[in-house]
């Protein structure tokens, strides 16, 4: 397992108004970070930047010794190093659960051997041949998690991963994240739920465009 080392320094991002003014964040293999904050405070924006799907305006972002810039695509980092569980799932509605989960394997020669345990752990085995369209929110959430983890990423970004889940499934997902952390994966989780946040080793609050550590 390769080491991961991420440094965000004074990251700034504005739309019509400034959402992130100066975000500093360090992530490595030991990180299990929770980020809270009010709705609209920019948590998802920060995760999109961290997950290399959105550009930032100012600041520096070092991903494993590589400086992230606008010019390059960095799709190989997204594919091989980052597992992104989106707040809105971002599953392809016309494909089945199985096809969605295996989507990342299309773009790599790596073989994934964890489909079966992942599927049984997340309790989505009966759903595999179902089209995404007909799934409930919680089911979609679990499929999205399976897809994010299928290639064994070093960094797991989870944007409200338990928002749609009942108590039982929430525990399954949280145990899964704990397990990933123990395996040496960096985990960043966004949540409003203090129960979720407490599992992490470090809690930040995103407020007025900056991250503040919470006791």
């Amino acid at each position: 397992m390769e080491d991961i080392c991420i440094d965000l320094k004074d990251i700034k991002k504005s739309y019509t108004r400034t959402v992130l003014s100066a975000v500093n964040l360090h992530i490595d293999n030991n990180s299990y970070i929770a980020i809270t904050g009010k709705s609209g405070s920019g948590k998802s924006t920060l995760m999109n930047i961290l997950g290399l799907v959105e550009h930032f305006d100012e600041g520096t972002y070092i991903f494993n010794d590589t400086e992230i810039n606008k010019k390059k695509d960095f799709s190989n980092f997204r594919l091989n190093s980052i597992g992104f569980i989106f707040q809105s799932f971002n599953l392809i509605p016309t494909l089945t659960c199985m096809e969605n989960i295996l989507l990342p394997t299309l773009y790599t020669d790596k073989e994934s051997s964890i489909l079966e345990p992942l599927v049984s752990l997340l309790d989505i085995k009966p759903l595999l041949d179902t089209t995404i369209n007909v799934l409930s929110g919680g089911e979609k959430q679990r499929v999205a998690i399976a897809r994010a983890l299928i290639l064994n990423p070093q960094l797991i970004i989870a944007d409200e991963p338990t928002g749609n889940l009942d108590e039982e499934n929430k525990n399954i997902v949280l145990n899964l994240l704990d397990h990933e952390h123990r395996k040496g994966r960096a985990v960043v989780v966004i949540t409003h739920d203090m129960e979720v946040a407490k599992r992490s080793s470090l809690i930040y609050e995103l407020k007025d465009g900056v991250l503040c550590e919470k006791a």
Partner: protein
Amino acid sequence: MVFCVRKHRKSSHAFLMVKKNIKSYLLLSVTIIMSFSFLLGFFVFIDSEIYNKHKITFSISPKVVVLIGPTDIKSNLNETNNNFNLLIHQLEKMDDTDFYMFYEKQFQLNHYQSGNLIINSNVYYIPNNTQGFYENHDGSGFISTRYLKGSKVIESSNQAIIDENLYNLLRAQGKNTDESVKITIPVAEENGGTVLKEFQVVGVVSAFAGYYTANDSRSLDSHIFLSQDLIKNTDSDIKQSRILVFSDRVSEVVSICDILNIEYFYPPYMIQRQALSEIQNQVFIKGITSIILFFLLAINLYSSFKNALNDRKFEIGVKRAIGAGKKDIVYQFFIEGMIVMVSSIIVSAIIILNLSLIYKLIQRVAFGVQWTIYLSSYSVIMFLFSAFFLSVSFSLIFAFQSTQIEIVKHLKQE
């Protein structure tokens, strides 16, 4: 293992995505099919029209040429016409060359006349057991004999081959049964007179000419082939002789004739060459039209593909977000574009083939015309080029447009 995680082949994923987006692709296909059907239909129609116009010209073997033989056939060839002698000597020496002389005579079959119908006959005296006959037709081209039934050769001096109009007339007059049709023709005698002689009709050929009406009387131009054995030196009506040459080296034969000052009918291979150049001239018009069609097609396809892409922006955003590179997306959409284009083009070809067959049937049933479906190699190349070029370029444009998508913009935001 129940879930054996294999690396899905990207191409099969592209097929899957076509299947999943079949509705939007069907709409796109309709546009493509209409466009390509129009292009191909245009080619087939133009080519077939030209082809059918020149069909007779091309039905004649390019190996044949008819030379105008000596006019004075009553005297001995060897003595009177040294040039023909030389020619025949040359022809005998040439490989892959056959030739024979035949003679032509015209008269009216008065004894068959009924009512105001006049039967004019062209009689050709051909050697026994020779096959193949060509007539110069109004000087504009050649007509080759089409054998309709019976024997293709005359074996003895009491046999005749006649054209279908005459054959039908004889049968309609009722004196003949189907098995044995006989015809009575005046022939020359040694003493200079003529006598009516009965011939067994052994074969029927297609008619070169037919019925026409002039000055209140109807005429039939007919053709009869008889054995050369019947020719008598005393037959003063025979004025024309011809030499029919079959050769792989027709142009050589023609140049020998030019040197020896022997006349010949404009050879079929030259007529065919003329027709070909006429067809080539149409290539220009066809070229311009196809370029215009090509651009209309291109504009049409561009907007269609753009529409198809709009439905797919979310999918592209997601795939890019989970790590698909631009190349992966280009590849997928290139394959998808090719699948749609190629299958639509095949469907267009099938549609046009069927429409042509229907048109052919209508021509035959309604107008009795034998209309041949024809597509020149030029058109095939043009069509394949357009199909290939448009498929590849639009698949590529489609594919590259697919990468112009800003990932986060098209992900679902809650």
